[in-house]
């Protein structure tokens, strides 16, 4: 069983090893800055398209402002054929026209060039720390030990989904369940790399260096859309991740990710295995 061993050395007893903890928090800050500066960049042209070029009359997502009959200004969001009034949040907020509101962008006011500086600096930090972590996780056996799904995990996946839907969570101190493994694996090996690659696919120089990337994603505007969608799937992951932590002894979990140690619960004699 992963991590369960008679070896009582300190490293074996750590819930999370140092590289995991350092990357977790570095990554969190990178993603926050990347999200906020990314929304700043999005706000320069708050519309998304499929294909190579922008079909200005037919974006699949667009945020804009519209003057109502009574003279007031409404923020609007169009998603495909549907239109929603989103005044105060999207399209028009804080008496200014734009996509996302000031509290969701970096800097808070419209400042595309500065948003780009933040975005690219933190993109490098994110890419380098992510690559180092992926390398560590593969070479140290972190993924094989704690995240590799065995036959039993796959068979129990349906059960996991049902339990999660019923909001019944086990405090699985010794082992991640299949659903957890799958979500962590897809974030680290799918969503995060996809953010980098779709981001690079928006660069005209990278397009010249690797035109096949454009073919892979279906054109630059498609890559921009996928960059946006993947970013929000990561936001969704972060929300679910935080809800899960809050529902399962948050202070203990937080302590585990900061110090590496997790105090044992009185009723449990599980070792603090996933390392």
């Amino acid at each position, binding site marked *: 069983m992963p991590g369960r061993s008679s070896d009582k050395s300190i490293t074996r007893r750590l819930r999370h090893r140092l590289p995991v903890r350092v990357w977790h928090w570095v990554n969190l800050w990178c993603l926050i800055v990347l999200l906020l500066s990314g929304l700043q960049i999005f706000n320069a042209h708050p519309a998304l398209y499929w294909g190579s070029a922008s079909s200005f009359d037919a974006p699949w997502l667009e945020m804009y402002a519209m003057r109502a009959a009574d003279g007031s200004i409404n923020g609007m969001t169009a998603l495909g054929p549907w239109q929603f009034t989103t005044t105060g949040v999207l399209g028009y907020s804080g008496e200014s026209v734009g996509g996302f509101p000031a509290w969701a962008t*970096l800097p808070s006011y419209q*400042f595309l060039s500065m948003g780009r500086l*933040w975005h690219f600096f933190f993109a490098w930090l994110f890419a380098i720390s992510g690559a180092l972590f992926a390398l560590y996780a593969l070479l140290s056996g972190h993924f094989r030990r704690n995240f590799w799904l065995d036959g039993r995990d796959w068979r129990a996946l349906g059960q996991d989904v049902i339990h999660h839907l019923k909001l019944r969570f086990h405090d699985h101190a010794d082992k991640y369940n299949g659903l957890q493994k799958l979500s962590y694996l897809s974030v680290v090996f799918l969503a995060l790399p996809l953010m980098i690659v779709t981001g690079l696919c928006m660069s005209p120089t990278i397009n010249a260096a690797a035109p096949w990337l454009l073919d892979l994603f279906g054109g630059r505007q498609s890559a921009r859309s996928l960059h946006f969608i993947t970013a929000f799937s990561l936001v969704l992951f972060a929300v679910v991740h935080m809800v899960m932590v809050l529902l399962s002894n948050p202070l203990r979990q937080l302590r585990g990710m900061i110090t590496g140690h997790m105090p044992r619960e009185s009723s449990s004699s599980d070792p603090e295995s996933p390392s």
Partner: protein
Amino acid sequence: MSRRPPSEPSLTRRALLQRTLLGAAALGLVGCDRLSENDAIIQLIGSAETLNLKAQRLLAGRESLAVEYPASMISPVFRPNGTVDPQTALYRQLAAYDFTDWRLTVDGLVQTPLELSLETLRGMPSRTQITRHDCVEGWSAIGQWSGPVLGDILEQAGVHASARYVVFHCMDQLDGEHDYYESIDMVEAFHPQTLLAHSLNGEPLPVGNGAPLRLRVERQLGYKMAKYLKGITLVEHFDDIQGGRGGYWEDRGYTWYAGI
């Protein structure tokens, strides 16, 4: 907890928490805005520009070509951006006579300074390419551009070995005060797709898209591609031109390298 007189409503734990969170959020926002105004921070996060330039040059090399598209993919309307109808006296006058009096000057660190009329430029061997134009704002449009390759004109003028940048002077003023200008380095200047375009989609360049002549630098973003050209100067440095950062938007905070 300090004691309060009974008349004053006590701060409940929930209210305290709410206020703390709101305060922290407000502080965070103000903090980020402050950081964006701090020169040392701007310099630090701006250092990624050098990294972008070096990494992208390594990956793309000197010669890699921008993707060229089939005619069927040309955008129905090529969206003009920035200045779309220059109001400077010089431009109005030249436009009134269909740019017959207009000349493109090539000077600076060259052996033979040139003065080229639109007729001369149209008569030169030209390249036609259907490429995608990417605005820094995020949108893209596809158009067919024709015009002489910049490298051919530079060779005709004979570039001095000390020249490091090509500066493009324009006839439009976005702020009504400063001429638009741009600069590229020799790698981009001698790239086979770097054109001085006089035509868009087979027609003479419309005013909105930069008539009579505009630059195409296909591996970079739209703001590098100066419109309404009047002169080209080869220089060693651009420190003494306007704001000293190599371009109108660069002087206003945008990065000089616009490959991403």
